[in-house]
């Protein structure tokens, strides 16, 4: 326990939400990434949150989505196999955007916590002043 635990815990939350935002950005960026049917499709990533012993949150791991993906018939695509099929990632854009809003709001909430922590420390400093 330290004097700046409130800031430290809020900072760990900022780190977690930033990782979450990074994975969501990666998922959305690769929503149209086509792979050949011989390989696996792009796998959507997800984050696993874990509470920390002394307070705070950390990324326990990154989950990988379905490697099977979705078979699409695109015979003109350069990566298409003999039957004209390619492998598209199994990413639901609506879910990704919803999670993006959740991660963004979580990040903003943690920023608000750091602001409040600063205000709290400032008011503690004003004790006995003047």
């Amino acid at each position: 326990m330290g004097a700046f635990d409130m800031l430290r815990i809020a900072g760990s939350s900022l780190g977690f939400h930033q990782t979450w935002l990074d994975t969501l950005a990666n998922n959305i960026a690769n929503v149209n990434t086509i792979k050949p049917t011989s390989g696996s499709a792009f796998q959507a990533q997800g984050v696993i949150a874990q509470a920390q012993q002394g307070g705070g949150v950390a990324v326990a791991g990154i989950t990988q989505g379905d490697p099977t993906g979705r078979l699409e018939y695109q015979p003109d695509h350069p990566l298409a196999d003999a039957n004209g099929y390619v492998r598209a990632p199994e990413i639901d854009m609506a879910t990704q955007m919803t999670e993006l809003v959740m991660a963004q709001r979580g990040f903003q909430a943690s920023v608000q916590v750091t602001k409040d922590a600063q205000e709290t420390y400032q008011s503690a400093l004003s004790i006995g002043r003047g």
Partner: protein
Amino acid sequence: MSVSGIEAVGGFTPLATPQLDATSGVKGAAGSSAVDGSKEFGNLVLDGIDRLQSVQSTSDQLAVKAATGDLDAIHHYTIAASEAAVTTQLTVAVRNKALEAFNEIMRMPV
């Protein structure tokens, strides 16, 4: 018919005031030099300044990283910077109080 007495409220412990023991006083930069038994105010201020220096150097290193683009996350720097700012203000407040007390003693008519 037997009536059982009202039991005392369980699970409630009165708030214990925090105790400052000799080992968990203000730690120095390396976290080793705890305030000794004599607890001189001067040592307290000096240890505070040591800690302030380490916090500020952390903040400075992150500021350099931010400038060179090696910063992993923005909040690492902003949190270190606000921590340094608050610690500076606290140390200055303690110093001002010490000076105030000193002046008060100097003004004491003998």
